[in-house]
Each structure stands twice: as C-alpha cells, then as structure tokens.
C-alpha cells in the first residue's frame, strides 16, 4: 500500500514558447486543466466552455474533443464545469482523497446524458461504462 500512497504524477505546463509567451490566464487555465488530468480525468467530449476540452490524436489525426468553434474557450469564470467536478467527486467520494475511494476504476467513461434540463445546472445524470 505504501506504493499507492506515494503514487506520483507529473504535469507539465508551458509558460511560453518562441513566440509568444503565455498570458497569465492561459497558465492559470492550463494549470487547472493539467491538474484535473493528474486527478484522473481524461479529455471531455462535451460542449463549449468545458475546462478539459482539448485536441487529441486519434488514428494519426488531431481531433478536437469539443466543438471546433469552441476550442480553447474555457469558462468565463475560470471554473471547471459541473461535469468535471462531479466526475472527480464520483471517483473519490465526498470525503475527497481519503481512502476508500469507491469510484476509482482502471478505466471507464462517464457520460453526460442531459445538459439541457431546466434547473439541472448542466448536469442531471451520468452513467458508467465498466467495460473499458
């Protein structure tokens, strides 16, 4: 169990290249994006404004995981979406990282089935595929 306690992930955040240097907001958003990965969430196939939308290489091509027009458009309030936050809470439970963490799985997919229900706060239900 000691190995589990010390399990380590390294996330890299680029602060600039040649050219240009990153804006502070870019570093803020990318830091949160990468840190969410470190907690165990992959990219979201979701709508505009999701904190962990990105591009991903599939079958040799880069594809956007969200609407192409919405790429790199993060929430105006710089917060992860409810989908992101609920997925983290689902994985770890409401007690946070303290063991046990019943939702931890080797690999699965969390679905967002309904983003449009009034009053749903953009999140009404998830389902898990445990076949992965």
């Amino acid at each position, binding site marked *: 169990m000691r190995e589990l306690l010390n399990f380590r992930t390294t996330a890299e955040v680029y602060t600039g290249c040649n050219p240009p240097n990153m804006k502070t907001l870019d570093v803020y958003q990318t830091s949160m994006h990468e840190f969410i990965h*470190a907690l165990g969430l992959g990219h979201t196939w979701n709508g505009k404004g999701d904190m962990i939308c990105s591009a991903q290489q599939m079958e040799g091509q880069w594809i956007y995981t969200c609407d192409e027009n919405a790429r790199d458009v993060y929430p105006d309030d710089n917060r992860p979406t409810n989908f992101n936050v609920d997925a983290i809470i689902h994985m770890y439970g409401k007690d946070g990282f303290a063991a046990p963490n019943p939702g931890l799985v080797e690999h699965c997919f969390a679905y967002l089935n309904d983003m449009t229900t009034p009053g749903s706060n953009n999140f009404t239900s998830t389902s898990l595929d445990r076949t992965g």
Partner: protein
Amino acid sequence: MLHADKVYEFTGMVQGLENSEGYYVEIRDDDGSEAGDTLTYDELDSQGKFSAGWLPDSQQQTYNIFATFEDEFGNRISSQIFYVNVSGQSVLSNETLMVEDVLDENTPFMALVHNNRNKDALNLYVEAKDAYSRMYIPTAVKAISDLSDVLKQKSGNPAAWNFRIFTTVGSPNSIQILKNPPNVRVQLKHEGVVEFPYHG
C-alpha cells in the same frame, strides 16, 4: 441493511501465498450469471490483505455479495455469500447512476482513469523549471487552490479536498521530498518548442 449514501469497506486476507503482490481480490454480486457482477476490487498487499471501498447503488435493493480470488493457474477461490439489503437515497443527490454496457461515442463523455490518490491532503509540488516561469508560480497555485475550493463547495465537505502545496524554483530538495513525498508535481516550463496542441 446497508444505506445507499454510505461508503462501505470490504477487508480481508488471502492466506497461503508465497508472494501476494500483484494479485487482486474482487468483491462481486451474485446476480445469477456465472461470474457475478464485480462491485469493487483491491490489490493484495505484501501480507495478502485487501481493503476495497464500495458505494451501494440505490437502484438495487438486494445484493448477494462474495469475495473471489484467482491464482496464477486460474484456480478460483470464493468466500461464502452475504445477503444484504440497501435502503435510502443515492449519495449523488441530483444524479442517477446507471451501468451501461456499450460506449456511445455520440453522447458527451469523458474518460476516467485509475489514479491512486488515497490520502488527504495530497502533497503537491509546483516547480518553476526556469527563471521566466517563476513568475507564474502564484498563478498555478491559485488555479489549484480554486479547484480545491470548488470541490469543497460542490461536495459539501469543506474539510476534504486538501492540497499541501510546496513551491520551488528548479527541483525540490531531497529532504523536502523525503518529508513530504510528492503525489503530484506541476512543472512550469518555458523552454522547448510548443507544438499543437499545447495543453495535453
């Protein structure tokens, strides 16, 4: 009787193994199928012990629970079956959890992967790897602190979701790492060519 809003822990020990590391114990529900439905699992530690957390599904009223272990030759050993009932509401008050059999790529989804974060608080190192990136340390710390705040607020548990954040320029020293083994290292870098897409 179990309650659907509580986390339960299955603990036990597999005896007689020369080396128990790398083996798993699964906790299953006898649902009538040959193998049963896996509810949770845990890797055995060096002493053969396991401890697996589980959250009952409020949609399912009864479980016939047993633990099962398979050795390297395919021999399977199972415990006796425990009959339990579930009452109460799901812990996720606004959500309904269901089990799907098929990955539907037309429905918005995200992949979840297994990360072993099982202590609170996590030790988090924010490292500026060059002089230029140093100025962004407070920015990265704020992003992570804000995420912590959102998790506290949304989960309704302000005592959880804690990070013990250490900041360094360059690499953390060995004494610091020994005292506080890092769980996550966030490295801020300026050097190198950033290729599309720049955030992974």
